[in-house]
């Protein structure tokens, strides 16, 4: 029996019922954002679905084996990132698909005009982000899109907090250059 951190309270997970509940909670909290992170890193909705699926299957395995999870948020991104890195290492054809090819659900009801405008804004940022280094894309997405703190990003990227801060600063400067 081991200790998992749930809602910042250490609990002892003994039975499958508790584990299933905990897993449901993890999926409900991070499912959407992990998919978005995968999509923006892989530029392919089908691949993003596959990696999201694999991420949660691995999380389930760790929960069912009662492995300790200390920082849930960075832990989930760490797994997803590892799978993305594996994909890039193994994949020979990294195809770039336009964001317009996917059906995105925007989080609120908008008029068609607003929706088109938003689509254009997203397309613009997305195109610029794709031009910068992969590690810059990653740190920018984790900080500004996924709202991870520097300490959490450091855990995901397996770097020190200082080097993560420097990386983020350089990444932002790189994006800014494309807007000038």
């Amino acid at each position, binding site marked *: *029996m081991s200790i998992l951190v749930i809602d910042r309270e250490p609990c*002892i997970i*003994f*039975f*499958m*019922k508790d584990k*299933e509940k905990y*897993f449901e909670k993890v*999926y409900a909290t991070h*499912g*959407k954002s992990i*998919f*978005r992170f995968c*999509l*923006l890193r892989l530029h392919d*909705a089908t691949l993003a*679905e596959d990696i*999201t*699926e694999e991420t*949660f*299957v691995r999380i*389930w*395995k760790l929960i*069912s084996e009662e492995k300790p999870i200390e920082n849930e948020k960075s832990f989930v991104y760490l797994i997803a990132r590892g799978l993305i890195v594996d994909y890039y290492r193994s994949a020979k054809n990294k195809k770039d698909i336009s964001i317009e090819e996917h*059906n*995105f*659900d*925007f*989080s609120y009801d908008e008029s068609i005009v607003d929706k088109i405008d*938003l689509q254009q*804004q*997203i397309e*613009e*940022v*997305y195109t610029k*982000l794709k031009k910068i280094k992969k590690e810059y894309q990653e740190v*920018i*997405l984790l900080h*500004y*899109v996924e709202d991870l703190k520097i300490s959490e990003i450091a855990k995901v990227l397996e770097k020190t907090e200082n080097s993560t801060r420097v990386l983020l600063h350089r990444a*932002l400067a790189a*994006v*800014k250059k494309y*807007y*000038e």
Partner: protein
Amino acid sequence: MNEKTVIKKIKTLKRIEPTSYQLETIKKRVSKRTKNEAVIISPIVRQRVVTAFFVICFVAAVALGLYQSSFFVKNIMETVMIQLTQNPYQKAQRSLTLSQQNLLIAQKNISESNVDSLIVSTAQTNAILAGMNMNGEPGLYTKSDCKQMYEKYISYLSRLQNQLHEAGKKTTDKNLKGKVVNFRSVVSQYHQQADSRLEAYQT
């Protein structure tokens, strides 16, 4: 363009979300893959496997003529009854009583088989107590029942630890001594877990 505007533009990416269909599909695929594994270790299956194991042990014991004392048979029967009891509180009560009886027997005569019985019954009691809801379950047991049960369990664990300490000192049998030492460290873990759960009532 200043930094703030760039950040604001980047943040528009937050609006990207999977369609509800995509999200549902991923969920279904994940649960399809995880359910297969969950079945293997689900509590119902685990309980049935344990029950079947004890029934087989019982039949085998009868068939081989190994039942030498009425206590041995009682012990097995009681273990089977515990597995079949549905109410977690009653289950815990029965299991704790069995563990206490086994401790009394081990106090009188410390032997490998008596230590084995203690190991099995204490592990069973620990697992049952761990599965109890600390706030009680409607119609089954109350929060205070659960608290009292934990207090009794902790007192049993303290006595067991003392007894094992004494037994470890007295015995000259190497195998038995090793078994007692290992069991003592397990009991100490049980004790810590039970203490931390009981502390939850105070906080």
